[in-house]
């Protein structure tokens, strides 16, 4: 019998598989997707938020534990578990040597991402390169990897994992019979439910306009995070944490593909212009703070607008000052023409922009600082980078909410154990998006998902191995190795 079964194929699953295998356990990893799409949302990631007390290879200055914790506290509005958060934070300061030993390479921040040179270590080549490296290392170490293997059910015996069930399925025209895979311990790391349209619909419901908002959401990540396993665990009575509508949500280009649009569909010019909804009205302070500190709230903001639509409007002055978008903007030499092309109410739109223009109090424009250009007497205000939109051509980029991953998950503790009625399972553990909601009740800050996934993936792997006799028992040094 396999010692440790890992369900999932992203960063957290791979970290767990590698740690369990390093502890001496025999490990099998089941990835629901075909090989070509392996890695879950990790293939779209690019960095790890890292605590450090002094400069470390690619990281400049220091990012101490307390500052990291305060940042997390701020973005989650207190919806976090301090103990688990601090475990993830501390683990981020020491896990990179281990990551490197499995073939992950780091590089200084990418151009256009210098603002995180202090806090985030970038993966060379991005998350897919990381996933490739981990899979290579896992296979070299003898982890058995199976693709196209969707676990549909978990067999439990009073909170103890017994076996995973794989439904009958077809791969490239070949039929595979239903299968029962026994293991002595198991790690669940199969992602959130962001790609499950029905579940999103159920979670978001119908709004006061009679719309089903989630029908207009795009999914930035993998199409394979359908939450089948998460749903099954909830049905089996696992303790749950988080609000199903909470997620890492960004405003992305409305023309992005339904799945796997990834990083390049983001629109980075919001703070340089105005954002209007379908009715041609502004609805939020576009210049509240630096865009990297605000991008994660705009998904929800747009989700609250009629038709879950908005348009980021800039003029010629902004060109070259933001990361180039993947799709070309709609351009026009007049605001009227722009409104016509976007099918916005022309008069209303022009008035919105003109009101904004005349409310701008322009000081010294500097898009690299919280400058003194702001509006006066305008609702909602624009606090920084407020410059009248007067220089044609004007550009518009359509926005829609883009879900990165959902926060509803399984409640856990510092051992990453799945809990039933407050009782920790002796051999069933959880990592990655399936439990990130313990730390992230809402909000997001760059690189935190990978920090949680790496920390709890490694803990889950060690704990799973320890639960079947490899390494020492929980709450010992071996476990501390993965967490401190």
């Amino acid at each position, binding site marked *: 019998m396999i010692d440790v079964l890992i369900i999932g194929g992203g960063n957290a699953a791979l970290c767990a598989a590698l740690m369990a295998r390093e502890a001496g356990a025999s490990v099998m990893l089941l990835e629901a997707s075909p090989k*070509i*799409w392996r890695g879950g949302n990790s*293939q*779209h990631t*690019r960095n790890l938020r890292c605590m450090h007390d002094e400069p470390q290879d690619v990281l400049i200055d220091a990012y101490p534990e307390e500052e990291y914790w305060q940042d997390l506290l701020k973005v989650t509005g207190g919806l976090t578990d301090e103990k688990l958060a601090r475990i993830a934070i501390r683990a981020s300061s020491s896990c990179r040597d281990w990551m490197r030993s499995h073939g992950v*390479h780091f*590089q*200084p921040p*990418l*151009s*256009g*991402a*210098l*603002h995180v040179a202090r806090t985030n270590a*970038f*993966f*060379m*080549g*991005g*998350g*897919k*390169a990381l996933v*490739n490296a981990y899979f*290579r290392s896992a296979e070299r170490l003898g982890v058995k990897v199976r693709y196209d293997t969707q676990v549909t059910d978990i067999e439990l015996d009073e909170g103890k994992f017994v076996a995973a069930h794989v439904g009958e399925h077809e791969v490239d025209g070949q039929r595979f019979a239903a299968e029962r895979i026994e293991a002595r311990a198991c790690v669940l790391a199969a992602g959130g439910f962001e790609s499950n349209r029905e579940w999103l619909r159920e979670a978001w419901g119908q709004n006061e306009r009679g719309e089903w908002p989630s029908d207009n959401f795009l999914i930035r990540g993998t199409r394979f995070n359908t939450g089948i396993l998460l749903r099954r665990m909830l049905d089996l009575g696992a303790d749950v944490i988080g609000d199903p509508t909470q997620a890492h949500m960004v405003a992305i280009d409305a023309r992005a*593909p339904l799945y*796997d649009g*990834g*990083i*390049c*569909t*983001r629109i*980075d010019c919001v*703070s340089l212009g105005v954002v209007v909804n379908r009715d041609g009205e502004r609805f939020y302070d576009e210049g509240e703070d*630096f*865009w*990297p500190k605000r991008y994660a709230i705009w998904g929800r903001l747009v989700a609250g607008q009629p038709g879950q639509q908005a348009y980021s409007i800039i003029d010629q002055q902004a*060109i*070259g*000052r*933001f*990361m*180039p*978008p*993947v799709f070309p903007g709609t351009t026009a030499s007049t605001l009227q023409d722009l409104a016509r092309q976007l099918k916005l109410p022309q008069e209303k739109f022009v008035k919105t922009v003109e009101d904004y223009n005349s409310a701008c109090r322009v000081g010294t424009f500097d*898009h*690299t600082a919280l400058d003194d250009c702001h509006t006066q007497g305008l609702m909602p205000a624009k606090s920084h980078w407020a410059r009248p939109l007067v220089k044609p051509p004007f550009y518009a980029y359509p926005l829609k909410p883009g879900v990165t991953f959902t926060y509803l998950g399984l409640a856990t503790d510092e051992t990453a154990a799945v809990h039933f009625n407050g009782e920790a399972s002796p051999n069933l553990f959880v990592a990655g998006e399936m439990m990130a909601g313990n730390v992230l009740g809402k909000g997001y800050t760059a690189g935190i998902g990978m920090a949680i996934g790496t920390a709890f993936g490694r803990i889950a792997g060690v704990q799973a191995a320890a639960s079947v006799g490899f390494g020492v028992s929980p709450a010992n040094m071996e476990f501390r190795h993965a967490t401190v």
Partner: protein
Amino acid sequence: MQLFDPQSSSGLIPVLNLDESEVQRQMTICNACRYCEGFCAVFPAMTRRLEFTQADIHYLANLCHNCGACLHACQYAAPHEFDVNIPKAMAKVRLDTYAEYAWPQMMGKLYQRNGLTLALASGGGLALFLCLTLMLMGNLFTTIPGGNFYKIFPHNTLALMFGSVFGFAVLALTMGVRRFWRNVSPVAAPLPLKTSAVLEATANVAKLKYLDGGHGRGCNNADDQFTLWRRRFHHLTFYGFMLCFAATGVATLFHYLLKWSAPYPIFSLPVMLGIAGGIGLLIGPAGLLWLNLRRNPAHGDENQKPMDRGFIALLFLVSASGLALLALRETSTLGLMLAIHLGLVMAFFLTMPYSKFAHGIFRSAALLKHAIEKRQPNPINAGSD
């Protein structure tokens, strides 16, 4: 040659062909992603642009070393609907540029079926020298004491034949790369900047910097695993070639300055250089061919395999025939061996400006442009907020 001409060859914006449009489409996606910036020079060069003109595309295509790293790391590679494959898109444009900048331009057509071009040139070279040998000797199997091949072809005849063909090849390559340079490099730069840029570009060429993957573990070949063997075999090929070139150069100096004519003994500088270079030029191309046969089919342009393999094979045969000539020069096969070696060398020289050989010249120029450009302020001030 004026390298830093601020005048671009045409004031009009050229219409992109299909291959160029594909690079433009993919670069727009990459420029919005930028995950691959650490791998090589292409992506840092890309971030200095918001739009990609034909000149930019020609430059970037030649900057790409087809290492494969960005393809295996790409979240937008097929089956993703964005279907990004930079090594392939760049390879296609690269071939177009070799053909387009070839001099005289009509000769660029030889790139269309380059494997055939090389085969015909080789066949022609062999036929020529076999016939010449027969005409001069009456047969192919006469032993000449001391292996003095000048008894068959006098020194001055060979010097004139090969000197003029080689001279033409150098001229053609120079004219080609000059047109390329003028097209892609309208920006003038101060001399100290150019000097340090030249040093960096030379080091990048000599070390084959951009086959190191950015992390020193090498580039990709069969799969997402990194390997340094492509770089090593290329080094053996390149330095083997340079040593053979040095052997010829030293021999020429001996001939004219020391009045010491070939054949030289084994333990003489020209022969030692030739042996060392010849061995490199055997192992290097053999290794490159072995890797090429195992190359991931998604890398580069499948249609260019005949060009690549033809060139590798020709290099291998030039070296093998040279070493065989050395080994057998005291036997009756001297005439035959000499004819074969000279025929292959002639084919190599003749096709130099119209074969894979050109990649080294265009890539060096692109690396120089990159070294100059990166020393200047980035014109795009994107996203630093």
